[in-house]
C-alpha cells in the first residue's frame, strides 16, 4: 500500500488553502462583475467580456510569464508593491492567489452572469413595485434565484484552482509549504522518476476531480426538477 510523504501532505493542504482563498475572493470579485455584464448594454461590454474570457484561451504559461514580469522589480505591479513596502509577489502565497484569481475568473463570472441573465428583469421590477430598494432587490430576489449559478461558479473555481499548473509553476518557485502545490509536486515526482509517489498524488487528484464533477452534475440534475 503506497503511503503519502509528509512533504506531499503539505502540498495537499496548501492546494486546498489556495483553492479556498481563491474561491472566496472570486465570489467577491465575480458577483459585481457578472451583475454588471448581465445588465449592461453598452458597446464596451464586449471588451470587458473578452478580457474576462481571455484566461480560457491563453496558455497558462503566457499568463504566468506576464505576471512574473509585471510583479517583478521592474514591472508596474512590482514597483507598486515595493513602494507600499509589501515586498514582491512572485514566490509568495499571495502571488499565487492573485495568479489563481485571474486564471479562474471566467469560471466564476460566466455561470453567475448566466444565472443573472436567466432571471430577467421581471422579478426585479415586480420587487421594485413592492417598494424593495436596490440592495433589497439584489439580496432578497436576485441572489436566491441565482443560487445554482453561484454553486456552479464556486465548484468550478475551486476545482480549476486545484488543477492549475502553468501559472503556479511560473510564479511559484516550488517552495514547500508556500508555493509547492499539488500539481507542481506531481510534476516534480514524475520528472524525478519517483513514479510511486506520483501515482499516489495523481490518482488522488483524478478521484477528487471526478467526485467534484459528479457532485456538480448531481446538483444540476436536482436543480432542474
Amino acid at each position, binding site marked *: 500500500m503506497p503511503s503519502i510523504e509528509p512533504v506531499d501532505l503539505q502540498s495537499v493542504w496548501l492546494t486546498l488553502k489556495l483553492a479556498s482563498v481563491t474561491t472566496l475572493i472570486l465570489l467577491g470579485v465575480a458577483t459585481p462583475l457578472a451583475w454588471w455584464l448581465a445588465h449592461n448594454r453598452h458597446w464596451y461590454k464586449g471588451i470587458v467580456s473578452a478580457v474576462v474570457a481571455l484566461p480560457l484561451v491563453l496558455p497558462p504559461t503566457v499568463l504566468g510569464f506576464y505576471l512574473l514580469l509585471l510583479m517583478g522589480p521592474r514591472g508596474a505591479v512590482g514597483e507598486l508593491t515595493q513602494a507600499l513596502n509589501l515586498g514582491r509577489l512572485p514566490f509568495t502565497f499571495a502571488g499565487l492567489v492573485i495568479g489563481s484569481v485571474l486564471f479562474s475568473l471566467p469560471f466564476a463570472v460566466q455561470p453567475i452572469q448566466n444565472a443573472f441573465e436567466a432571471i430577467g428583469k421581471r422579478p426585479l421590477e415586480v420587487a421594485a413595485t413592492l417598494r424593495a430598494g436596490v440592495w433589497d432587490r439584489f439580496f432578497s430576489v436576485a441572489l436566491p434565484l441565482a443560487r445554482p449559478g453561484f454553486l456552479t461558479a464556486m465548484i468550478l473555481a475551486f476545482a480549476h484552482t486545484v488543477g492549475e499548473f502553468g501559472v503556479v*509553476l511560473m510564479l511559484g*518557485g516550488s*517552495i514547500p509549504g508556500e508555493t509547492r502545490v499539488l500539481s507542481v509536486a506531481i510534476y516534480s515526482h514524475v520528472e524525478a522518476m519517483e513514479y510511486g509517489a506520483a501515482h499516489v498524488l495523481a490518482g488522488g487528484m483524478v478521484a477528487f476531480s471526478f467526485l467534484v464533477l459528479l457532485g456538480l452534475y448531481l446538483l444540476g440534475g436536482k436543480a432542474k426538477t
Partner: protein
Amino acid sequence: MKLSQSRVLLGALLCGMMVNTVYAGEVNAAVAANFAEPMGQIAKLFQQASGHTVKVSLGSTGKFYSQIQNGAPFDVLVAADDKVPLRLEKEGLAVDGSRFIYALGKLVLWSAQSGYVDDKGHVLRKGDYNKLAIGDPKLASYGTAAKEALEELGLWGAVQSKLVMGENITQTYQFAATGNADLAFIALSQITQNGKVTNGSWWIVPAHLYNPIKQSAVQLSAAKDKAAAQAFLIFLKSDKAKTIIRSFGYELP
C-alpha cells in the same frame, strides 16, 4: 520522341529524389535545456556537412527519460547528466557502448544586476539578497551541483529561507533574468557567448565544490540502425563541435 525524352527526364528526376531521401536522413534529438544554444550551432554545421537534418526537442533530462520509456520517437538523447543515459543503457533502451561525455558543465552564481556578484562569491555570505534561485536538486543536474556547493561552503542551512526552485535550469535563469531573484546558480553556458559573459555579474564556482556535471549523450535503441543518428553522435565528438562547446564555457573530458 519528345514524350519519351521527357519520360527519361522525369525518371531521372524521381531517381535523384529517391537517392536524396536515402542519404539525407533526419535525426530526432532530445536535448537538455542548458545545451540549447550550442546545439543550435552544432546542428547547423552538421546539416551543412552531412545533409542530414536535426530536429531538436528541448527539455529536462528527467522528462525525456519518462518519454523515452514510453516510446517517444527520439534517436539520440543529449542529456544534462550521466545518470539517465546510464539507466537507459541498463534498461536496454539505449545502444550499448554508444554513451559518452560530450561536455563537463560549469556552475556559476549569477545576477542580472552588474556589480552585484563579486568574483569570490562573498555575496552569498553577506546574505542581503532577496531570493536565491537554484534548479530543483532532484530534477536538474545543475541544481544538484548548486546544493553540493552550498553544502561545501557551509551555507545550505542558511539559504533555506531564501531558496526558490526552478523545475529546470532555464526556468531558474528566468527567475533571475526577470529580476525576481537577485541571485541564481545556473549553467555558465546560459550566459556565455563566444567565450565571453556579457550580461550582469557572476562568480564561476570552483570545480572542487561540486561533483563534475558529466553531460552525456547516447544513441537510443529505437534508432539502432539509423545511420544519421550515428553520424550525428560522431559529429558531436568532432573538433568542430568541441570548439563550439568550449565557446559556451563548457570544459571537455
